[in-house]
């Protein structure tokens, strides 16, 4: 299975490398690539960068460079960064370091607070509606084993479904998300992992599981992924 994914990676990377940009006219600017890493960057911005760099080896190299840099464990950079507040005071009144006026700070804070309160009210107001929608839709909640728990014997997997289903299918994956086992149709809302499947699990490894509901052979809903660690 792992070689299966490796093969897909190899082929896709070959595809991605097959059409280098003839010129850099259509490439995003360096600032656009850097900005796309910001948490506040829009989904559209990120999508544009991904779509582009998947076909442009030059931009891909730059993108990967930033990914590597962000993944590097060096925390010295943060340590070396002086505190912003101190710097603002150091040269207040001059261009770059000029702190925003007190009025604008206050206005910004007030606006932020208003938005926060409004969001909370909106969330509370919408919650009931969401619940109704969910119950008519496809929510399956995994009950046991609790996500992140360590198990030492074949677990009894239990779930709760808010939708009508003919049967459920439980799927088990390893840490790389490769399928390990798929159950047959299950009528109940629980299933003990067969001991022969459990015997194949590697101690110390994390496994993921999820449940999909079916009505008249069509999938009607699915759970989030649950996670457990095996110990023997």
């Amino acid at each position, binding site marked *: 299975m792992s070689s299966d994914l490796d093969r*897909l990676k190899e082929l896709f990377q070959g*595809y991605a490398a097959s059409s280098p940009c003839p010129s850099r006219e259509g490439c995003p600017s360096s600032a656009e690539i850097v900005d796309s890493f910001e948490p506040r960057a829009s989904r559209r911005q990120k999508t544009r960068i991904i779509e582009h760099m998947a076909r442009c080896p030059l931009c891909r190299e730059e993108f990967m460079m930033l990914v590597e840099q962000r993944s590097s464990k*060096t925390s*010295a950079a943060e340590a070396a960064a002086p505190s*912003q507040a101190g710097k603002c005071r150091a*040269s207040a009144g001059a261009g770059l370091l000029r702190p925003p006026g007190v009025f604008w700070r206050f206005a910004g804070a007030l606006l932020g607070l208003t938005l926060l309160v409004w969001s909370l009210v909106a969330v509370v107001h919408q919650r009931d509606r969401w619940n109704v929608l969910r119950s008519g839709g496809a929510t399956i909640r995994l009950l046991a084993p609790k996500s992140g728990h360590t198990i030492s014997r074949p677990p009894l997997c239990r779930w709760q479904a808010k939708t009508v289903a003919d049967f459920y299918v439980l799927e088990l994956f390893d840490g790389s998300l490769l399928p390990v086992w798929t159950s047959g149709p299950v009528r109940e809302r629980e299933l003990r992992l067969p001991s022969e499947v459990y015997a194949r699990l590697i101690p110390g490894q994390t496994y993921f599981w999820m449940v999909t509901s079916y009505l008249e052979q069509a999938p009607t809903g699915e759970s989030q992924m649950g996670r457990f660690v095996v110990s023997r």
Partner: protein
Amino acid sequence: MERPTLAEEEFKQIMQDFGPFMKVEVQRFNLSKYGLDPEDILQDARIRIWQSVQRERTIISLPAYIKKIVNSAVIDQLRKRRRDDSLVHLEQHRCVSETTNGYDRESARKKAMEETVGRAVERLISSRRQVVKLYLLNLTIQEIASYLNWSPDKTRNLLYRGLADLKQHLKDMEVEYEQRSR
């Protein structure tokens, strides 16, 4: 002797406060791999900061801004370096093209397979396609989650669904992409 202007004083202050920070930020890149000189990047970053000071731009978070300037400077230096090298590469590429054979059945088959996989990936729905593309380009789930600003669970879920769709598309296209063991 001429007195330094306000902008000059401010720039000096920034360099004094953030100089070490800039160096550390530059060192976090594996620059030797790309043949880049850290000093060139620092110089480029200094020029950009000086220009910002002169334009009297107001920046809310100076460390974040400087970090961005350094990152952009690294990429621009890489682009500059590539431009400088491009003529040499173009010439080399021309020579190689002239000396290699026109057609190789095995590589043509592989190329067709790559094209098919690429097309199958393009058929995925947008949210899954982004995750699958990044995963196939060798990013880890953590790196993808961090870039897309999603939880690892959500990323994992979309990746799993995307890969399943991709395999289904390939199956529908009757493509056998797995290499048979000999």
